[in-house]
């Protein structure tokens, strides 16, 4: 079989039934990365030796008729804020390049290894995750595989681009305000930001601990669900990781959107949209036969609160480095962090208190709606280097405003699947499917239905080009 651009579950099935060896997966994946990554700059470091070592173990286990994990032989890579044993955890920064190598793997990498997946390396990201563009002053921009003059989105830009380019079928990223949902939308693939606290963040370099999530990118909904089930589970090393018993989501996908009450987010989520992003919401709603709209209260304030919490927590996190190594930061990031480090405490506390209010208000909205449809970004991928964009006649900076529609949702930790919407001759855009806390299964089920209706990932896999 041709491995390039095959879904993770297809590769795992072939490895399980012996029609494909994990070692062959390594050779094909390495060739794809060597051929295609230089043009998109997704990888910051490759770990071919590790992938081969893991593949040899998978193949040996199969020969010995030992049970194989659900992701046996599946290649993947991770945003470079996840600890990988033996590699320095860059978090997109020059400063961290001077840190010693990680002594062990992040919890989620341990779990993927236990499931038989093969780690191919670390992926580029915006510095310290404070980014929606995929640009990085130190390591260069990650380019959108669909048009290399355009942004991948960020901050998990390398994760999205690696999947969208067909280099790996699966990648991990993090999402504090939209850093999974924005790049998955702009590169035309599926992304899952799980419920806050559902997946362990242990072994991940933090950005804003109150809002940090981790999650997968993939070319299919089934791969997202399969990965979610491998990664779930309590972890005492992450103070906010849930202690509840994991509930598998894969088994529910076949139910699709049946019985799920859907509505389109109105008002805030329908302003400032470019025509392609607005059309994407309409296409998804039409495919699901949804006409009803729903109102989320005080969304602009929720975004303001998330903005301030992020700015102030991150400013505090980096304060010592801002005092001693300011020149080594990406200038765009440094100026934002300095502002956050100087902000008044009362702004921060008000944001945390408002979070409680907003959580209760949105819970009430979900009393009679199961999944809310909203745009993921206001537009398709801007050009690399583009500093401003025009929304509703107002010129706004690109960097903070690509997350205009994602930020108010992660603020209260709701699970979201980003579904790709592709149109011929146009760059992809994405639509958010937002579910109540802990009902990640609902947004995955609706995404699965949309996938069967033709809302599939767009992989830029031109072998040999």
């Amino acid at each position: 079989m041709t491995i390039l651009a095959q879904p993770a579950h297809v590769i795992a099935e072939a490895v399980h039934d012996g029609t494909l060896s994990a070692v062959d997966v390594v050779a094909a994946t390495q060739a794809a990365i060597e051929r295609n990554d230089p043009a998109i700059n997704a990888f910051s470091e490759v770990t071919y030796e590790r992938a081969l070592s893991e593949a040899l173990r998978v193949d040996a286990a199969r020969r010995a008729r030992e049970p194989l994990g659900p992701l046996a032989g599946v290649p993947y890579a991770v945003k470079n804020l996840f600890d990988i044993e033996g590699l320095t955890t860059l978090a997109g920064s020059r400063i961290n390049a001077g840190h010693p190598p990680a002594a062990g793997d992040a919890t989620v990498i341990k779990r993927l290894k236990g499931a038989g997946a093969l780690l191919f390396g670390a992926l580029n990201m915006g510095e310290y995750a404070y980014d929606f563009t995929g640009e990085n002053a130190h390591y260069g921009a990650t380019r959108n595989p669909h048009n290399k003059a355009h942004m991948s989105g960020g901050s998990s830009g390398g994760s999205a681009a690696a999947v969208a380019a067909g280099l790996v079928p699966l990648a991990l990223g993090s999402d504090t305000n939209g850093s999974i949902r924005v790049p998955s939308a702009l590169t035309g693939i599926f992304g899952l930001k799980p419920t806050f606290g559902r997946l362990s963040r242990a072994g991940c370099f933090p950005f804003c601990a109150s809002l940090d999530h981790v999650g997968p990118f993939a070319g299919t909904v089934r791969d997202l669900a399969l990965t979610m089930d491998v990664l779930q589970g309590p972890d005492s090393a992450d103070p906010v990781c849930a202690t509840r018993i994991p509930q598998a989501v894969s088994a529910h996908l076949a139910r699709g959107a049946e019985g799920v009450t859907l509505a389109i987010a109105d008002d805030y989520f329908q302003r400032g949209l470019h025509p392609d992003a607005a059309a994407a919401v309409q296409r998804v709603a039409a495919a699901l036969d949804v006409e009803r709209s729903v109102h989320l209260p005080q969304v602009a304030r929720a975004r303001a609160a998330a903005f301030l919490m992020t700015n102030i927590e991150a400013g505090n996190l980096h304060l010592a480095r801002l005092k001693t190594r300011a020149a080594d930061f990406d200038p765009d990031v440094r100026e934002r962090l300095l502002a956050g480090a100087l902000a008044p405490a009362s702004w921060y506390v008000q944001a945390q208190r408002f979070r409680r209010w907003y959580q209760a208000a949105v819970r009430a909205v979900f009393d009679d709606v199961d999944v809310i449809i909203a745009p993921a970004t206001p537009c398709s991928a801007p050009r690399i280097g583009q500093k401003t964009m025009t929304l509703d006649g107002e010129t706004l900076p690109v960097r903070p405003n690509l997350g205009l529609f994602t930020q108010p949702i992660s603020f209260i930790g709701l699970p979201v699947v980003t579904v790709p919407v592709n149109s011929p001759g146009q760059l992809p855009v994405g639509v958010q499917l937002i579910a109540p806390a802990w009902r990640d299964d609902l947004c995955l089920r609706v995404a699965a239905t949309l996938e069967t209706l033709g809302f599939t990932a767009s992989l830029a896999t031109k072998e040999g080009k």
Partner: protein
Amino acid sequence: MPKPDFDPECWLDTLSALMDVDIAAGDRAGVVVNLAVAAQMAELLMAFELPDDLEAAPHFAP
């Protein structure tokens, strides 16, 4: 609530001195812009009346 005439330059000078944060000349304008944006966000947020018994959510369990 920040005053409508919140002066980010004055804030920057006062707080950076208090917190011993040296702002390079080349960064000053960018930090001022970012403080002004944060102040706009704060103005919106601080204008919202919250009940006294509403607790902050730093350890958040959705």
